[in-house]
């Protein structure tokens, strides 16, 4: 298949810690194409966050390499090719919301007027207009995470890396932000790599879900999510959604050899 050039190519990447004693990732191969929304899902300690950090050149693989936009991961980082969102919002306490969003723009040497205009657009995108002069500690957890997303998108990177961004939020906020994230993804036309341990979240958001096995982390299965777009809260109640949730769960539990347990997909929602 000769599609467009991949945004991210992960090529036989392995990673071990503590002088090779702990094998975190083993021979990961994955290609992510433009406009894809790919979730990495797996149990705690399967190395999904490690893999995301390798893509972002925040840590180096022990073996293999990563190509981002046709460049080495290091060159892509230096060219500011991606934005990143962590589980915690990681906002700077001493900066207002507006100043937090414009932080990457300052690094990229945008002038003040351009920065202000972009911050206004970003606040609108994450529906926080009017909160620009607040400090992070004056916002709720969900609002903080929206600021963090606005910051990651402020310089229009084509690639967005998200490390369990909604993991610390309550279920209701998480579902609402899932919907918002899909709208933003649609608006900006970016490519997303998303780490999560929530099956429902992965299925709802993604175009593809890469299911990882526990240590040493490997990609057990890649599942195409063929739910139609745009997805809404109603999507979560469609039979196809439940089928895919079941499929991902079975992949997580080590293949479909074991019959699905007698409970419904509701349990994971």
């Amino acid at each position, binding site marked *: 298949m000769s599609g467009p050039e991949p945004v991210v190519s992960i090529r036989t990447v392995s990673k071990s810690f503590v002088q090779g004693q702990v094998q975190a990732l083993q021979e990961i191969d994955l290609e992510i194409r433009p406009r894809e929304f790919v979730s990495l899902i797996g149990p705690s300690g399967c190395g999904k966050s490690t893999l995301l950090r390798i893509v972002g050149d925040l840590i180096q693989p022990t073996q293999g390499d990563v190509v981002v936009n046709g460049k080495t991961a290091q060159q892509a980082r230096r060219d500011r090719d991606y*934005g*990143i969102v962590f589980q915690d919002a990681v906002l700077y306490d001493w900066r207002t919301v507006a100043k937090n969003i414009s932080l990457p723009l300052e690094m990229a040497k945008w002038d003040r007027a351009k920065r202000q205009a972009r911050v206004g657009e970003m606040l609108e995108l994450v529906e926080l207009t009017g909160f620009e002069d607040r400090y992070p500690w004056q916002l709720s957890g969900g609002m903080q995470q929206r600021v963090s997303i606005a910051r990651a998108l402020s310089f229009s990177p084509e690639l967005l890396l998200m490390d369990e961004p909604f993991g610390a939020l309550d279920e209701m906020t998480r579902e609402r932000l899932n919907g918002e994230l899909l709208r933003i993804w649609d608006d900006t036309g970016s490519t997303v790599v998303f780490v999560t341990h929530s099956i429902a979240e992965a299925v709802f958001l993604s175009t593809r879900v890469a299911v990882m096995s526990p240590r040493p982390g490997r990609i057990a299965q890649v599942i195409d999510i063929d739910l139609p777009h745009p997805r809404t809260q109603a999507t979560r109640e469609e039979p196809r959604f439940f089928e895919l949730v079941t499929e991902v769960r079975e992949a997580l539990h080590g293949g479909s050899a074991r019959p699905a347990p007698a409970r419904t997909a509701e349990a994971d929602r």
Partner: protein
Amino acid sequence: MSSLARRIGSFLLVLVGLVLLWEGFKWVAEATELRLGTFTVNDTTFPHLYDIVGQLFEPSRRNGPMLIEVLWDSALFTAKEAVAGFLLGAVVGLAIGIVLHHSRLLQRGFLPYIVASQTVPILAIAPMVVVYLGGELQAPGWVSVAVIAAYLTFFPVTVNTLRGLASADPRALELMRSYAASPFEVLWKLKLPASLPYLFAAFKISATASVVGAMIGELPSSIQDGLGGAILNFNQYYLSSPESLWATNLIAALLGISFFLVILLVERLVVRRAPEHIA
């Protein structure tokens, strides 16, 4: 408004309590003729507070200005030395902290000497500073005193700078790395702002230490114009006028408190943090 009233109220309550404690102890000790070795409580060893305060408004010498006017001038002089010493110590302390933060090798090599510098008594260092700066370099006396004060004030700043710069959230550092930020940008936009609460904790210690350093520094430099000189002077006349020394101590304490309050005020203006993070 009621919180301000409560603050003032509790301040006055403590003040009255301390006055009662002082006068009450004096009254009980004199009534019972308390003896601690050769120490007895009387108007010389333990003057009345109203005599101490009253002394401020007596002429400092026959036909001279009131004591409080003399001490006010001395306090201003010492304040000048202390401010210069504090600023010098803060800048040097910050610079040393930043350099050591960026080099583990230098940190390992130099930190023991920096710690050792604080175990050498300031009274041993002061005469050398006065001889070097005043003698060879012809620097005015207050400059020597400022350097002596700085010797006391740089240390807390260095220690807390090291602690503060290392306090930046590892995720926030990864964020800076993802922006391909230069080491200077990481320092200026992340590490220094993150260390501000630590720095201000150090500045509060250093500000009061700079007043002590300045007064002690005046002694070996034979400077008569400051509070240190005044203390030395009134010490010689203690038996005839103990209230003068106590009054000088009072002014010295007020100077230290006002230094502390200035730092507190600047902190309120500069440090933008969640309320629970402000000391």
